[in-house]
């Protein structure tokens, strides 16, 4: 019984702000199910006694001191904005 249905894909694409057509939805349903299949395989591994990890790298406590450095000029910062007004990024209206 597949865990990924077209409904799941529609929900995920909505959350990810992606608009998928019917073909894409069908294709991704299949793909994601395959990914999960692989995960199910991994799940068969006996991990008793192995601590849970959030990272593959054995690094920890990587940080910098609290020091201010100059960032971008405003013109540079705004260079990639789709639209600019009053020195701000202008975006489609949000309703609140």
């Amino acid at each position, binding site marked *: 019984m597949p865990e990924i249905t077209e409904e799941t894909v529609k929900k995920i694409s*909505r*959350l990810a*702000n992606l608009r998928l057509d019917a073909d894409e939805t069908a294709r991704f349903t299949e793909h994601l199910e395959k990914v999960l299949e692989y995960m199910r395989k991994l799940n068969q591994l006996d991990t008793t006694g192995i601590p849970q990890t*959030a*990272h593959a*790298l054995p*690094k*920890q*406590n*990587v*940080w*910098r*001191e*609290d*020091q*201010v*450095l100059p*960032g*971008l000029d*405003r013109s540079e*910062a*705004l260079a*990639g904005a789709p*639209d600019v*007004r*009053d*020195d*701000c*990024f*202008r*975006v*489609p*209206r*949000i*309703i*609140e």
Partner: protein
Amino acid sequence: MDQDYEIVIGLEVHVELATDSKIFCPCPTAFGAPPNTQVCPVCLGLPGTLPVLNRQVLVLAIRAALALEATPAEHTKFDRKNYFYPDLPKAYQISQFDQPLALRGIIEITTPAGPKRIRITRVHMEEDAGKLLHPGADGRLGTAGSSLVDYNRTGVPLIEIVSEPDLRSADEAYAYLIALKEILQYAGVSDCNMEEGSLRCDANISVRLRGDQVLGTKAELKNMNSFKHIRSAIEYEARRQIRVLQEGGQVVQESRLWDEEKGVSYPMRSKEEAHDYRYFPEPDLPVITISAEMCEAISQSLPELPQARRQRFRQKYTLNEYNAGVLTSSRELADFFESMVDCQAPAQAACNWLTVELLGKLNAEGRRITQSPVGPEHLAELVRMIESGKISGKIGKQVFAEMYQSGRTPEDIVAKQGLSQISDPGVLEKVVDEVLAAHPGPIAEYRNGKTQTMGFLVGRVMQASQGKANPKLVNQILKERLDR
């Protein structure tokens, strides 16, 4: 009846940490800069950039946790909270999910029924979002068909402090916030400046019939930044929910906003998918191990916290609860008071002059104790002059006003203006005799048993001495003369 219902409140408070630079990049955090002038590729979420944790954020967050009696985690990590909103350039906020910085704290608040301990669920670190500006002539968001974004605030370090649903009234919520703010300010974690948005609060509110064990359905009041507004918002929201239930309806679980002008809360119309944040570990930031040594060092550097200081003030200086509370409401004020005591001012008199005269004046002008034109040494000197009888209390007020205005020392003012109190019996007797000679009527009245006349005569003597006569001595001498 409203009395049949119990209000249940839990608070989520976001506090800006007092760092110079942002949490994951070296941009400044200073408030009030022109839009988009404190940004870099990291906080703008440009592709290919990597965040690096500011160590001071961790230090201040641990300080806050310890000051709130919470236990810092041995291992903690960051997670991505995913949602789309224009103030969030990466489309995720770096926050903490299942391994927060610290768990299980306590804040003790004062209620009419006595002290009450409010449990804190967790303290975690996260980055702030940007600021949405309001174009449109009438100032309403988005009326011009677009919104403007300033990303200066993006990446400013925050801690979120989540309480258990232990609060039972708007007043308790208010007391909790005051206590929390005091603790964080004492610990030097944040300036908690409400006007600059350094402290913001979400309130989860539900109501249930008294005696019910199950919590009612809650509504969340979002993003409030004034304690007074929070109190009225909670009161309103609780009444609204009770009314819904009384009318046979059901409370809807939703986020609401508070409209202070109209005095009502209303549901947020958000396009966001309801709370499906799909948290996952932030792959760009390695995990953090907090050593016992680090906690110990931070714990050692914490100052005496408000509650302990309040208790010590009551015992050491025999102040009442109210005065001890006022004096310890900020670390700077408590320090000012103790500096006065260090300068040999008697505690009670120091407290009176500081809280009534100086604070009265500062508050009237909207100034803080740190902006006082009168320092603790000089106020202590003034108090000593009054206590030793060098000047009267009345003259003291005059001298104080002059000190506040000019910043001159009390000694200087008293000397230059000849304000020293007259305590020389010879001089006073002369003044008393002159006054008596001029008022035969009142003397006769006094001797006929109308002893209140004494007050009138004391007043005349004080007047004749331009307020400089030692009132105690004047009374003594007058009484002697009259009873003769």
